């Protein structure tokens, strides 16, 4: 691979001029030096010059000293581009003979996976000359079927993140791996004496078989060592199944089978490791429903709006405590022994009647889901209800836990902190976790950490925890190291690198091996050892097969049919007084682990469309009562702890509920995401996802809230249309007359159809578009000014009473109008129509009059107000798709229907002398969509999938009255009339 790793540790014995090379290479931002004189004009430079080139120094007297120095600095600066890399001894030569199969400019795809919350997200990585530029869901994977989410799409930027930790650090200062090895070896030797007494390992959720094997090996060497798992956003895990079935089990909601789903504060379609799988299954069910094969009914009771609630036909706004009461009532309704119905209010009774009716109408095809962040006893109760409605084994299946758990009694973070505070921990090794930031309120991790004699943190970033540790080891990103992991269904994937590490980093398995005294094995050897043990003789073939497929076939655990062991019914929870705070993972930051990822920072949150920050969401009623408006700064006090944040008035939120999200208020030095929003971890006690008794006070100040959509009421327009039944036709306007004649379109002529009945507003398409099309990120201030650059946006609208509105999403790419006002407006022919029906933007012809955008009824065009790209650090440039032009300052840009993909397919087809097949061109957004809401193809071919959709009675054009004849059309959402009163389906 020609990409030699770039920066490296300052090893001993390097030439002293190397330090000047470092001044050019070892920087956090770009290396600016104003002049060569500045670079050369220091006494050190002169001294180094004498040392390095004594002859030149003697010349200095003869030549003009200044010009000599300038010449030396110039060559040094030029050599700085290549000359001072860590692995400079590795010879890099251009291809003399091209490696087999490697054609410059032709992408190669590798199957791999990235992990999210410990679970594998199977992916295909597109690489150019060994440089990954795009991740897509692996379409062959049995669980995801190619579905992806925002986190998978954005993982690529995590690889190229210039803020990543690039070298080991000791006490915060750069150190060498040799010194690190020394320190680890000494600690390990010392631990041998005590059988590992005092050694603690802290990780996130582990599904990696290799890591499990390594941890088990450590346990064998040091029996007294203990392993703790801290996954801040994980719910109560297996507690519910352990209660009911007597053993921990993973639950799998089969949304593809369940025709009536009652969600009590559950958000199966919302962000999380399950999202892609659930969304794919739900969309399969939804498609079947639209074909008339069974129902697809969702009933949701929740306090905080969720994506599932948005898609639900019947959403009840219920306080957190009332959700539990509703579950009890449902249990009583279906005859769970010992459950008695609590008193319900009018609308609660109505909703419950609907829910019961829906479940009864679909016997054996129903499902009741309690949120994973509900108290375990209520999740257990939901299992009992599922038993009654016959969902166990059909709508809800079980497997042995996919994640590897520490043996009984090892416990979680609070147990660890307790031991640390008691002085029982002498060595703490933290792998890919950031407890100094994510520790719950009341668990004083920072103070306890002081008492630990040896603190080692391995992570992608030098984060809050790393800053408190003796040693920080930079981890390799998953896309540059070998590993393995299991997806949520348990199917294992081998994580193979798409590129050699950029920096002097080690894989997580190497760190664990180091701990065990192995300093020689690479990650690949370690991972292979795991699978070699399992596969034995068949290893070579199966390994190769697993790498090609991207997963190990048949590695998912078999479903089990557990018997109910215990039937406890919890009491009705007391109604909460005052304000209840609900804590939620952030839809783009999760627990803050992605806060340095600009793509995710700038992805608008599904409801508020807020970017670069989190908000204190309050209900419209509370806002009216307290005189709060969006952007007002408030102080929130909960159990004596307080935080300050910006208010967001969130329609559809329960009246006295305040919703907080994690992931902001980061304090790591130099981090991209540091300084935005508030830190909700500082307020949340261990194990609680909601807490009553909050106090809210206005500070009188205002905070900037950068939202991409300031106005979310549909205002009586019909941007998102609905039909009552799948077969119902959307009313269509007659063809309006036009000044211009209708064009004849030759095949192929491209068009898109977006099914609003399938879109769940997850934003995967938005981030996929960013990654595919080199869309620049602009930052909080510019987003607040309305200058975000997303080519594809997901509009969100409310309709109805703000207390309980209906909520709609609508992805809006360029409409590629057949009669595009933008084309008429442009004075220089910079936006023109192609023969295959695309509205093209010619960047190098554009002079930036912005007429096209002024004339665009859909406002999908984006303008480069500044030079957004040329200041990007080299790492970020490497992330760019070489097939897509990087736009300069002052030009307009917009969705191209991924014209580069069309061109690539067209070239292939032409070479093979055949037409382009339907479905052969897949746009980035279409590929990313977990619900297959987007269809793309040749609209002149009546047999194409997209033509099929456009012929649907549900098909309509956005702003038909503007008479632009858009090529992007929508399919109306199926929403039975009066669904707030409980319709038939929906």
């Amino acid at each position: 691979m020609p990409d030699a790793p770039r920066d490296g540790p300052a090893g001993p014995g390097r030439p002293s001029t190397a330090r000047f090379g470092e001044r050019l290479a070892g920087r956090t931002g770009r290396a600016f030096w104003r002049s060569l004189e500045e670079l050369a004009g220091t006494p050190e430079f002169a001294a180094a010059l004498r040392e390095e080139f004594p002859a030149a120094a003697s010349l200095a007297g003869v030549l003009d000293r200044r010009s000599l120095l300038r010449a030396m600095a110039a060559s040094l600066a030029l050599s700085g581009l290549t000359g001072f890399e860590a692995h400079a001894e590795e010879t890099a030569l251009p291809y003399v003979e091209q490696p087999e199969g490697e054609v410059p400019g032709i992408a190669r795809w590798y199957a791999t996976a990235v992990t999210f919350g410990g679970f594998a997200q199977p992916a295909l990585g597109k690489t150019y000359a060994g440089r990954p530029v795009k991740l897509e869901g692996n379409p062959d994977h049995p669980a995801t079927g190619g579905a992806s989410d925002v986190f998978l799409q954005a993982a690529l930027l995590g690889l190229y993140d210039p803020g990543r930790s690039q070298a080991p650090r000791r006490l915060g200062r750069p150190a060498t791996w040799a010194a690190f090895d020394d320190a680890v070896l000494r600690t390990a030797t010392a631990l041998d004496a005590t059988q590992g007494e005092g050694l603690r390992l802290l990780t996130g959720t582990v599904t990696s078989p290799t890591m499990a094997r390594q941890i088990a090996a450590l346990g064998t060497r040091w029996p007294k060592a203990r392993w703790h798992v801290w996954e801040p956003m994980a719910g109560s895990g297996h507690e519910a199944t352990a209660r009911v079935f007597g053993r921990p089990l993973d639950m799998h909601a089969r949304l593809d089978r369940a025709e009536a789903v009652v969600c009590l504060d559950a958000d199966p379609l919302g962000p999380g490791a399950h999202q892609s799988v659930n969304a794919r299954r739900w969309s399969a069910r939804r498609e079947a429903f639209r074909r008339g094969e069974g129902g697809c009914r969702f009933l949701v009771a929740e306090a905080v709006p969720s994506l599932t609630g948005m898609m639900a036909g019947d959403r009840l706004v219920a306080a957190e405590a009332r959700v539990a009461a509703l579950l009890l009532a449902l249990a009583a309704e279906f005859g769970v022994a010992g459950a008695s119905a609590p008193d319900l209010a009018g609308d609660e009774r109505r909703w419950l009647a609907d829910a019961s009716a829906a479940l009864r109408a679909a016997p054996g095809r129903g499902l009741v889901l309690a949120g994973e962040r509900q108290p375990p006893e209520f999740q257990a109760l939901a299992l009992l209800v599922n038993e009654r409605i016959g969902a166990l084994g059909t709508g809800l299946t079980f497997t042995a836990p996919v994640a590897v758990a520490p043996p009984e009694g090892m416990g979680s973070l609070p147990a660890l902190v307790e031991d640390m505070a008691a002085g029982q921990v002498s060595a703490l090794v933290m792998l890919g976790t950031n407890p100094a930031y994510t520790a719950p309120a009341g668990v004083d991790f920072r103070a306890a950490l002081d008492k630990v004699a040896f603190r080692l943190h391995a992570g992608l970033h030098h984060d809050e925890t790393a800053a408190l540790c003796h040693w920080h080891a930079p981890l390799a990103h998953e896309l540059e190291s070998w590993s393995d992991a299991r997806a949520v269904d348990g199917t294992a994937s081998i994580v193979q690198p798409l590129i050699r590490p950029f920096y002097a980093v080690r894989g997580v398995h190497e760190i664990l091996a180091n701990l065990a005294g192995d300093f020689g094995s690479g990650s690949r050897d370690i991972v292979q050892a795991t699978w070699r043990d399992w596969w034995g003789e068949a290893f070579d073939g199966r390994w190769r097969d697993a790498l090609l497929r991207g997963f190990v076939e048949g590695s998912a655990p078999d479903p089990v049919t557990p018997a109910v062991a215990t039937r406890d019914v919890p009491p009705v929870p007391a109604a909460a007084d005052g304000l209840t705070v609900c804590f939620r993972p952030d839809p783009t930051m999760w627990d803050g682990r992605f806060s340095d990822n600009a793509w995710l920072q700038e992805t608008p949150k599904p409801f508020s469309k807020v970017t670069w920050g989190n908000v204190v969401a309050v209900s419209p009623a509370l806002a009216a009562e307290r005189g709060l408006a969006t952007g007002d700064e408030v102080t929130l006090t909960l159990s004596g702890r307080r935080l300050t944040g910006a208010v967001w008035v969130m329609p559809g939120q329960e009246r006295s509920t305040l919703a907080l999200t994690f992931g902001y208020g980061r304090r790591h030095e130099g981090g991209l995401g540091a300084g935005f929003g508030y830190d909700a971890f500082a307020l949340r006690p261990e194990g609680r996802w909601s807490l009553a008794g909050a106090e809210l006070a206005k500070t009188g100040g205002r905070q900037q809230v950068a939202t991409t959509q300031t106005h979310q009421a549909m205002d009586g327009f019909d941007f998102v249309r609905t039909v009552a039944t799948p077969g119902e036709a959307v009313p269509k306007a007659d063809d309006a007359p036009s000044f211009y004649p209708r064009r004849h379109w030759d095949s192929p002529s491209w068009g898109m159809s977006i099914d609003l009945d399938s879109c769940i507003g997850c934003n995967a398409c938005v981030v996929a578009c960013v990654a595919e099309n080199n869309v620049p990120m602009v930052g909080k201030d510019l987003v607040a000014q309305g200058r975000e650059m997303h080519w594809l946006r997901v509009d969100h609208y409310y309709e109805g009473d703000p207390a309980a509105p209906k909520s709609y999403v609508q992805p809006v790419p360029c409409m590629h109008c057949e009669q595009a006002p933008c084309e008429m407006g442009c004075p220089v022919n910079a936006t023109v129509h192609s023969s295959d029906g695309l509205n093209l933007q010619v960047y190098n012809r554009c002079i930036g009059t912005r007429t096209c955008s002024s004339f665009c009824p859909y406002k999908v065009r984006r303008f480069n107000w500044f030079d957004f790209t040329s200041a990007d650090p080299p790492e970020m440039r490497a992330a760019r798709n070489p097939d897509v032009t990087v736009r300069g300052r002052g030009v307009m840009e917009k969705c191209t229907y991924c014209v580069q993909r069309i061109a690539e397919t067209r070239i292939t087809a032409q070479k093979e002398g055949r037409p382009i097949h339907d479905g052969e061109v897949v746009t980035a957004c279409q590929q990313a969509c977990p619900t297959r809401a987007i269809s793309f193809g040749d609209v002149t071919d009546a047999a194409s999938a997209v033509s099929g959709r456009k012929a649907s009675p549900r098909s309509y054009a956005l702003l038909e009255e503007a008479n632009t004849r858009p090529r992007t059309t929508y399919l109306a959402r199926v929403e039975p009339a009066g669904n707030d009163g409980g319709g038939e389906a929906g």
Partner: protein
Amino acid sequence: MSDVAGPSRDRFAAVTEEVTSIPLRYPEPRGWWILFAFALLLLMVFVVSAGALLRYGVGMWGNNIPVNWGLAISNYIWFLGIGHAGTLISAMLLLLGAHWRNALNRFAEAMTLFAVVCAGLYPILHLGRPWLFYWMAPYPSTMTVWPQFKSPLTWDFFAVLTYLTVSVLFWYIGIVPDLAATRDRARTRRQQVFYGLAALGWRGSARHWARWGQAYRLTAAIAVPLVVSVHSEISLLFAAGPIPGWSSTVFPPYFVLGAAFSGFAVVAMIAVVLRHALGLQDLVRERHLDLLGIFLLATGLMTAYGYWAEVFDVLYAGEKQELGTLQDRLVGAYAWSYWGAVVANFVPLQLLWFRSIRVRPLPLFLIALSVTIGMWLERYMLLVTSLYRDWLVSSWAEYHASVWEWGLFAGMLGVFLAPFLLFVRFLPVISSFEIKEVMAEDEEERHA
């Protein structure tokens, strides 16, 4: 003119003396220098704000998606509109033979010239890549790409360029005889050379006058339709877009009348100021102020009709989107610009029904100032209230001009003021020979 009696010859000489003495021996240099220093200061502001703009990009301004255009375009229309009054007064009244124009036409033309320069700078500066503005011109390039002739901007480019050329020609042709008169009275060598070169060898021969008359009238004949076509064309910048509040057929006449309205207001202001500052009460008389007031009132009422027609159109058509825009104008975030325009344009204007107000310089000046501001508000309103809330609710966003935009606006006033002050200081501000011509004709009539 051959048998003009002695005393009247003196009167003619007095007129020439009065006009040419201004550039040769400026009467009030102190006031001029103060004003000029102020103009230079504004010019500096222009250099700084345009420099920052060119260095960093249009992002320095407050524009966004959806409000792609802001102050730059509304000022462009405003400046160009102001310019039109100069052409109307000079060229149209010349062709109509309205002699009273002679007291006003010279500085009105100069105003046109500098306003067009300001107007022309704006669309170039507002480009994302201003250094490529010439791509709008149909020149034979190696790229063999032509401008897009359906675009209103292409025609804007032609229109402004043509208008600038014709305005320069018309103004310069008109001033040549007076430059010659000034040359003949110049005492210092430097003045003689300067005015001598500028006068292009004018000797006042009969043939000169004949050719001059043809050229002047011909240019005037070209200039008059330009007033209509240029501002109609500018209105298409809006009207061609399918944006609620813009795509209206009333726009072309509405824009032309508005342009004349704002232009007459600025001419009135300049007339009042120059008359006072340079002591030209005998040349710019009450009658002229009165006529300016009448014109202002007339064009103002026509503009008011445009306002009414626009609202009527919307209500009559009843399109939801258009009604929404109308509502935004009347009560939305930028309602101040709508009501500001209505009040500033039409309320003080009603005083001009009274001759006693029209002939008094100060009230006329204040009313004209109010109209100038009102028409600025109107341009801003038409642009912003349509764009900030267009079709899709999801894209709605407000626009707030940044300090750099205001800086450029202030600077642009400097771009207007500085050359105008130089004109006042160094060139004959009033057409003395045309005034004399009228006087002679009057006398002939009296003799007859």
